[in-house]
């Protein structure tokens, strides 16, 4: 059985800065990392391989520098890495991205399981996992916090909910997205790093995947990001101190004099 892990290279948000004038990300000097949620997906894929065998393929779409993220996946233990890179892929939204990833996965054989993180820390949409599943007409389960059992035929897992979890059983092949509770990702080993340095990163372009160019990249994206901005900080509140009777009186007085304008936030 082959296992595919879809990963995304993202800016390291632990030290991110936004240009307040243009409201865009300052990319200079910001290190690129594998989306942290995808690290859990890689780890889980490796654990499944160690348990029931198979091959782990790391898959990513992006510019050539994404090869570095794929090398990291190999250093952790992935058997091969495929980079989907083509100018035609640029500007893809979640629809076009998942269509492209699905097209690449269709080129692979004997796929039993496709994993990814629950969302990327830059876009935060969480749509690509389910999107790939729909394009491939495969079932999917999102937000998995634990895989109880897995074989080449079926999976029993726990899906995280706000106030508990769902225990689900499903047939393979399937697409799953994972949350951070699922495991603690390993660190790359020296042998892994050395293997990654030498490893060949397989690259596929749009022509190879065979999806018409008008359906991918910016052309194939029904949504577009018009603006990115830092939400304005909420205004400072006011705390009235003293006995309840006094504070209520103070609050009323404040409201009456118009110190707090109700509805102001809505108008903005």
């Amino acid at each position, binding site marked *: 059985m082959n296992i595919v892990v879809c990963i995304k290279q993202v800016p390291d948000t632990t030290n991110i800065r936004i240009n307040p004038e243009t409201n865009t990300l300052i990319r200079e000097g910001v290190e690129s990392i594998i989306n942290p949620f995808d690290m859990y997906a890689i780890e889980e894929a490796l654990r499944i391989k160690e348990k029931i065998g198979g091959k782990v393929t790391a898959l990513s779409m992006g510019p050539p520098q994404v090869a570095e993220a794929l090398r990291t996946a190999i250093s952790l233990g992935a058997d091969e890495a495929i980079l989907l890179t083509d100018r035609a892929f640029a500007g893809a939204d979640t629809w076009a991205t998942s269509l492209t990833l699905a097209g690449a996965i269709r080129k692979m054989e004997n796929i039993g399981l496709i994993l990814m993180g629950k969302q990327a820390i830059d876009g935060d949409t969480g749509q690509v996992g389910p999107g790939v599943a729909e394009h491939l007409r495969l079932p999917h389960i999102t937000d998995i916090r634990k895989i109880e059992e897995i074989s080449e035929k079926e999976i029993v897992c726990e899906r995280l909910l706000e106030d508990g979890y769902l225990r689900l059983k499903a047939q393979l092949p399937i697409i799953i997205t994972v949350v951070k509770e699922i495991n603690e990702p*390993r*660190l*790359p*080993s*020296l*042998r*892994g*790093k*050395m293997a990654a*340095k030498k490893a060949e990163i397989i690259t596929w372009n749009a022509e190879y995947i065979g999806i018409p160019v008008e359906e991918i990249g910016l052309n194939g994206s029904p949504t577009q990001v018009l603006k990115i901005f830092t939400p304005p900080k909420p205004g400072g509140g006011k705390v009235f101190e003293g006995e309840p009777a006094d504070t209520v009186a103070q609050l009323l007085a404040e409201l009456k004099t118009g110190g707090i304008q109700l509805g102001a936030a809505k108008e903005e």
Partner: protein
Amino acid sequence: MDYFLTEEQQMIRDTAAQIAKEKIEPLALEYDEKGIFPWDIVKVLGDADLFRVFIPEEYDGLGGGAFEMSIVVEELSKACGGIALAYAASGLGIIPIILFGSEEQKKTWLPRLASGEILAAFALTEPNAGSDASAIITSAKPDGDDYVMNGTKQWITNGGEAEIYTVIAQTDPSRGARGSSAILVQKGTPGFEFGKKEDKMGIRASATRELIFQDCRVPKTNRLGKEGMGFMVAMKTFDQSRPGVAAQALGIAQGALDKAVAYARQREQFGRPVSSFQGLQFMMADMAMQLEAARALTYQVARNIDAGVKNVAGISAMAKVLASDAAMRITTDAVQIFGGYGYMKDYPMEKMMRDAKITQIYEGTNQIQREIIAMHLIKESMRKEG
């Protein structure tokens, strides 16, 4: 300063540094306080292939030497000199197997040690034989194809935790220092027991125990090198391992200096950061100078060892003394820079000072090291005069 590491050495440094920061530092104070042996970290180090770096490739190693080992020990020690010692002490136990082991012994032990699945230890010191290592009385009496061992080894790092021990014992007491041999003894051998775990001032996450031999029978095939070579095995092992102790001292000192400078920048008194006061600036500058000088010497000694330079005993001792004395001064000054906070157990400074102290004492006290250095000077002077 740039020490021009190869790409592979840089990879080793980065790997060790990441483990130190992400895995060791969060545990350091708790493991020190409770004296927890870091088996969880040993597993992480093993999985990361760090035990492989100084083991030959034919035994599942990566083929490096003293330099690679020193880089790892230094990085790990920045976070915790005690936890780093589980690694370094296994290295001390592995070196004699690499240097003197038979093909059979190497095949049996090195791959398992390389993976980090098991640890090694080295046992020379006894209650009445410390600096005077020739005074050991633990005996290994030849008896047919076996040795029968009796006696007690003291303060053995990784004692009780390690699987395989290189033990220096008297196989022919009538010959004194020339009558000792190095013998591999596996944990669990009948007649081989451990004493209580010592309660130490520092490096408290490491395990230090007595090894007690009572009619412990081991086959003669467990001997490393020839009979009577025990003292030589010990000395050659120390020649190679001393940069490791120096590296431990460097790591502890660097960790303390980094924290002290960061603290001095943010601690304000008299309306400005204390780092702006010349009194502290002079201290920080002295700390940095001593550290860099000790590092330069340590690295160069390690490279000499790996290049196969003969007679490294003198320079190896120099690196150990310079780095450990520097670490003691630097950690003491780091506590001073932290002021009252430095004296509190809530902060890592007092621990680093406690951890630094041992590096002046073990693997040959700094006084014995100075004697070794002086002996080499005298011999060299005599040689020149012919």
